[in-house]
């Protein structure tokens, strides 16, 4: 069977909108276009009803209550609202936050912004498996700690953090726990009660919904979490996020959440895992000197992040241009710095330059994986033939003993 190229293996960056999601959204752009805040006519009622259904669908995915959903423009806004909103509301209680060095930039930069306003932030390191240490978390707690923010699963390496254990520790100390669950939802089971989380960031476009819509789940009871808004206006979303609700987007997020929940039990995610495993097994059969970045055991079923030693990531991506993927190489970033996540795990900078991230998705086919495998193997061998480093290693030279001319 033939495949259409380029094939998409970058499902951590974004996912295609599921046609069932797009179909559900469509009527809310045209005939049912009402403002959900219009209380006095049927256009408004229809819109409001659609929004409430979406809240239910999201709550079912998370295990929380529909009333606890606050719609936002996406996970970046959700993360900002969680961090800055909690900080502002609780600043009389304390000004200390704990997070991790491998968090998403939306978390890290929100924390940096608070540091400029006098907050103190502890950035937990991670082990070579990419996970934080619970002992280090324990040691980082202070009297004035008001918030802990740790992601469910990392966007680069797919490594899953021990959220339930972190939640338990936070709960025992009455510290608010925020979890950016964007990458994990619909890929692994997640329940707000079992996880002891208080705030959860959600993005639609990472789970086959549209871009431009996300949500923050905010615990309402035992304990009730309060937030100061970062966007002021008409007092929508119980005052936590003003702005006319984008009903069609919300309908899309709701439908995406419903489908994401189904994928966990209807075999969908098992199929994704099998394809990811097939890719990794195949690569290991045909290539030497591959280094898996991050824990295999605690990893999203769709993620593969591998360093192809002696082959620079950008050249690799150009070599396999029929496959859409990402690299942690410096040459693919505007900053010319290799991935901060890989560096935080202690991955050698040399190997960080050779890392490639693959993200298998709901619409990836077996034929695409077979095609990708053949192409990657061929191009890695070709680029290694071109690599002076690979040649030196074949000659038995230890690259660590060479005096390189840094530039």
């Amino acid at each position, binding site marked *: 069977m033939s495949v259409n190229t380029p094939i998409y293996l970058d499902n951590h960056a974004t996912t295609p909108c599921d046609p069932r999601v797009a179909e559900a959204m469509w009527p809310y752009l045209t005939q049912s276009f009402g403002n959900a805040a219009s209380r006095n006519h049927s256009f408004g009622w229809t819109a409001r009803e659609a929004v409430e259904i979406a809240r239910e669908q999201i709550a079912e995915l998370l295990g929380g209550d529909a009333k606890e959903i606050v719609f936002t423009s996406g996970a970046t806004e959700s993360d900002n609202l969680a961090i800055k909103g909690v900080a502002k509301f609780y600043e009389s209680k304390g000004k200390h936050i704990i997070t991790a060095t491998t968090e998403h930039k939306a978390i890290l930069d929100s924390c940096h912004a608070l540091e400029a306003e006098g907050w103190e932030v502890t950035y937990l390191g991670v082990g070579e498996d990419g996970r934080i240490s619970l002992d280090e978390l324990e040691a980082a707690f202070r009297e004035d700690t008001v918030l802990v923010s740790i992601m469910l699963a990392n966007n680069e390496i797919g490594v899953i953090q021990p959220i339930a254990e972190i939640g338990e520790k936070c709960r025992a100390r009455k510290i608010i726990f925020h979890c950016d669950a964007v990458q994990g939802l619909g890929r692994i089971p997640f329940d707000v009660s079992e996880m002891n989380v208080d705030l959860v960031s959600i993005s639609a476009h990472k789970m086959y919904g549209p871009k431009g819509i996300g949500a923050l789940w905010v615990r309402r009871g035992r304990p009730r979490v309060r937030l100061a808004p970062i966007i002021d206006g008409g007092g929508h979303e119980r005052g936590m996020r003003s702005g006319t609700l984008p009903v069609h987007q919300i309908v899309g997020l709701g439908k995406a959440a419903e489908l994401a929940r189904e994928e966990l039990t209807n075999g969908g995610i098992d199929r994704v895992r099998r394809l990811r495993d097939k890719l990794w097994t195949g690569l290991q059969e045909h290539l030497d000197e591959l280094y898996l970045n991050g824990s295999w055991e605690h990893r999203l079923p769709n993620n593969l992040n591998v360093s192809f030693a002696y082959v620079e990531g950008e*050249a690799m991506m*150009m*070599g396999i241009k029929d496959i859409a993927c990402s690299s942690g*190489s410096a040459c693919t970033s505007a900053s010319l710095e290799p991935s901060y996540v890989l560096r935080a795990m202690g991955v050698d900078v040399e190997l960080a330059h050779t890392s490639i991230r693959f993200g298998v998705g709901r619409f990836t086919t077996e034929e695409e994986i077979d095609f990708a495998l053949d192409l990657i193997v061929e191009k890695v061998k070709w680029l290694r033939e071109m*690599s*002076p480093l*690979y*040649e030196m290693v074949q000659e038995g030279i230890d690259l660590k003993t060479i005096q390189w001319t840094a530039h």
Partner: protein
Amino acid sequence: MAYSEKVIDHLENPRNVGSLDRNDPDVGTGMVGAPACGDVMKLQLKINDSGVIEDAKFKTFGCGSAIASSSLITTMVKGQKIEDALAISNADIARELSLPPVKIHCSVLAEDAIKAAISDYQSKKEGE
């Protein structure tokens, strides 16, 4: 990275990939860059007694523009006299490949590789 067609062509069809005998007295080897920086170029030049570059081979670990820059310089220096090869500047390479500003360092590295290979050749000759 949006690259010029020339970069893509050199990357997809690199010229003169390979190695020359580094112990040959007529071969100068230049190795520049560092794995930690994400690019290492090895350029080898075979130079005859009249100072003409008869053959050039490269191997490069690096991004697309690093590979393209090294491939390009092998085609430029072949048949050139040492003085002419030494006169190739990074600006010439960057212009020929229309490198984006963020990739200028790749052309600098390529210029350095030529100089390093010739210097290696010359020190071999002085030692004879």
